C-alpha cells in the first residue's frame, strides 16, 4: 500500500527527524507520529504523480515550520514544565522509555562518580572524616590535586554516552586525564604548613595546580560536550552557554543541599543522634560530586524549554558593574588614591576581569548577531573600558612590586592570568567600539571570543605542568 520511498528521500527524512528531535519540546513519540504523517503525505502525493523530491518538499511545507511546531508543543506542555525539569517527560499514560533510560543513565553516572570519589577512603585517604588521624594533611593534599580527576571523567562519560562518541574520541579525551593524573601525583610538591588555627595550608605551586587543573579539565569536558568537534568555532559558544547554565544550576542545587544538611543536623541533634560524621564524610562529598553529573543532565534536558538564565543575569548586572567601575574611577580621580599594590590586590583584579569577561561572554552568547547596536552594547563598552583602565593602573603598581620583591609562583600566576584576560578584553573593547560605529559586524566579537577559548586551556595547562618545576615545587 505504501509507495516506495527512494534512498535520497529516506536520508532527508531521517535528517528532518533528528532536526526535530533536537527540540526538547517535541518528544520522540511526537516525532514518530509526525514522521508517519510525513510518509503518508509523501506516498499520497506520489500517487498523484509528484516525484519523490517534490512530494517531500510539499509534505514538509504542509507540516509547517519547526519553530511554530515546537512553540505549539511547548505551549501545550507549559503546565508541565516542572516535569520536564525533574522527570523527563510526556503524559502520565505514555512515558517515553528513552527519557527514562536517560534519567537512569544519569543517575548511574552520578553514583559512579560519587563512588569513585570515595574510593580513596578505602585506602585510608579520607580527609572528610573528622578524625585526628595523623595523616590528615596528606589526605587533604591528595584530594586537592585529584578531586577533578576523580569526578570529571564521569561527566565526560555521561556526555560521551549522550553524544554517542566514538571510541577514538573517548580515547583522545582520556589522554589529558591520564597525563594530568600522573603529573600531579608524581611531582614532589613541598609539604605545606600546618598551623593550629587555619589547619593545613598547601604549598603555592600545589595550590595553583589544584586550582588550574579543573579549569583545564573543564575545557576537555567541553570537547566531549561538542561531540569531539572542538575545532569548529561556532559550536564553542554552545559550550559557553552550557557552562554558564551549569554553574547557575549547580549553585542553586548546592544552596538547596546546604539547607537540607543544616536542617538534618538540627533535627537529629534535637533527637540526640549524632549524624555529623555521616553528613561530613558521605552526604556532602557524594552529593557535591553526584550533582556535577545531574546538573549537566538538567541543563541538557531543559535546554530550549525555558529562557536561559545566564543572559538574564548578565543583562541585570552589566549596567550595575559598569556603574561601580565608573564610580571607582571617579573616586580615584577625585581623591588621587591609586591602587595600593597589596598582596591580595592582584587576585581582586583577576576576579574583576573574570567577571567582566563573563558578562561580555554571556551577553554575546545570547545576542542575535544580526541585530543593530543597542544601548546595552554601549553600556558593555563602558564596562569593558573602565575595567581595562582600572586594571592597567593596578598592573602598573603590581609590576613595581614584583620587580622589587621578585617572582613568586602566586604573583606570576596572577600576572599571567591578568595578561590573558587583558588581551582578550582589549581586543573585545576594540571590536565592540567598531561595532557601535558600525564598522564591523557583531559576529566578529563572537568569533573572537570563541577563538580565544583554547588559550585558557593552554594557560591553565602551563600553570599545572610548568609552574611546579619552574618554582622548585615550592
Amino acid at each position: 500500500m505504501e509507495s516506495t520511498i527512494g534512498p535520497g528521500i529516506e536520508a532527508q527524512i531521517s535528517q528532518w527527524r533528528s532536526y526535530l528531535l533536537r527540540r526538547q519540546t517535541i518528544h520522540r513519540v511526537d516525532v514518530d507520529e509526525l514522521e508517519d504523517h510525513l510518509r503518508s503525505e509523501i506516498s499520497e502525493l506520489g500517487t498523484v504523480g509528484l516525484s519523490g523530491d517534490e512530494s517531500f518538499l510539499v509534505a514538509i511545507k504542509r507540516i509547517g515550520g519547526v519553530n511554530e511546531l515546537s512553540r505549539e508543543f511547548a505551549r501545550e506542555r507549559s503546565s508541565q514544565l516542572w516535569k520536564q525539569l525533574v522527570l523527563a517527560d510526556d503524559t502520565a499514560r505514555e512515558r517515553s522509555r528513552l527519557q527514562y533510560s536517560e534519567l537512569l543513565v544519569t543517575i548511574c553516572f552520578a553514583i559512579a562518580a560519587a563512588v569513585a570519589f570515595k574510593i580513596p577512603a578505602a585506602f585510608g585517604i579520607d580527609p572528610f572524616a573528622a578524625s585526628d588521624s595523623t595523616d590528615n594533611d596528606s589526605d587533604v593534599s591528595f584530594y586537592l590535586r585529584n578531586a577533578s580527576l576523580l569526578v570529571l571523567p564521569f561527566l565526560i562519560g555521561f556526555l560521551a554516552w549522550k553524544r554517542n562518541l566514538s571510541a577514538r574520541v573517548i580515547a583522545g579525551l582520556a589522554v589529558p586525564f591520564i597525563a594530568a593524573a600522573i603529573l600531579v601525583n608524581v611531582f614532589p610538591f613541598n609539604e605545606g604548613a600546618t598551623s593550629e588555627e587555619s589547619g593545613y595550608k598547601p604549598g603555592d605551586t600545589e595550590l595553583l595546580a589544584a586550582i588550574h587543573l579543573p579549569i583545564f579539565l573543564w575545557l576537555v569536558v567541553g570537547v566531549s560536550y561538542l561531540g569531539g568537534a572542538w575545532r569548529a568555532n561556532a559550536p564553542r559558544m554552545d559550550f559557553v552557554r552550557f557552562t554558564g547554565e551549569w554553574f547557575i544550576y549547580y549553585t542553586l542545587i548546592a544552596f538547596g543541599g546546604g539547607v537540607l544538611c543544616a536542617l538534618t543536623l538540627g533535627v537529629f541533634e534535637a533527637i540526640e543522634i549524632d549524624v555529623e560524621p555521616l553528613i561530613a564524610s558521605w552526604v556532602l562529598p557524594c552529593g557535591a560530586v553526584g550533582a556535577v553529573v545531574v546538573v549537566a543532565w538538567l541543563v541538557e534536558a531543559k535546554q530550549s524549554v525555558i529562557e536561559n538564565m545566564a543572559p538574564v543575569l548578565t543583562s541585570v548586572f552589566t549596567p550595575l558593574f559598569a556603574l561601580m567601575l565608573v564610580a571607582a574611577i571617579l573616586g580615584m580621580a577625585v581623591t588621587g588614591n591609586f591602587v595600593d599594590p597589596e598582596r591580595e590586590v592582584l587576585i581582586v583584579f583577576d576576579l574583576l576581569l573574570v567577571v567582566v569577561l563573563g558578562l561580555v561572554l554571556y551577553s554575546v552568547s545570547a545576542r542575535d548577531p544580526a541585530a543593530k547596536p543597542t544601548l546595552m552594547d554601549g553600556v558593555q563598552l563602558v564596562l569593558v573600558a573602565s575595567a581595562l583602565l582600572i586594571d592597567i593602573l593596578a598592573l602598573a603598581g603590581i609590576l613595581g612590586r614584583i620587580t622589587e620583591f621578585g617572582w613568586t609562583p602566586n604573583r606570576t600566576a596572577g600576572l599571567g592570568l591578568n595578561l590573558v584576560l587583558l588581551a582578550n578584553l582589549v581586543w573585545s573593547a576594540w571590536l565592540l567600539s567598531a561595532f557601535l560605529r558600525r564598522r564591523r559586524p557583531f559576529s566578529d566579537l563572537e568569533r573572537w571570543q570563541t577563538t580565544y577559548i583554547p588559550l585558557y586551556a593552554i594557560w591553565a595547562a602551563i600553570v599545572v605542568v610548568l609552574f611546579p618545576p619552574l618554582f622548585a615545587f615550592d
Partner: protein
Amino acid sequence: MQATKEVRIGKDLVAASAMPLVLAILNEGESYGYAILKRIDELSAGGLEWTDGMLYPLLHRLDRLGYVEARWDSPPGSRRRRYYRITPGGQNALSEHRRQWEVVSDALQNAWRSFQVTNSAPDPVEA
C-alpha cells in the same frame, strides 16, 4: 479541492473550530492524524486550511484533557501509527461545543437573513 476554494477561513476561526471538528471526526470512529486531516479537508471541501503539524499539539491537548485516548498500533510489516479514540468525556465536550456553535450559528443565520433582506430591498425603511 472544490469550487469553494476561494473562501479563505481566517486563522482565529480555524483555531476556534479545530477542537469541535476533531472531536466530531473522532466521534465517527477511531482515526489517526493524517486521516483526520483528510477528513477535515473533505468536510470543509478544502475551505479549512490547516498547517498539518498543528493537529498534533491539539491531539495532545485533547489527550491531556481526557477527551481522547491514544494508542500505538503496529501492524506487522508496516510502520506503527498512533490512533485516537473519543472518550465519554470527549463526547460530553463535543455536545457542549455543539450547543455553543449552534447558538452562534443561529445568531449568524438570523443576522444574515436581515442582511439579505436589506440587500435585496435597498429602499430605506424609514419611509
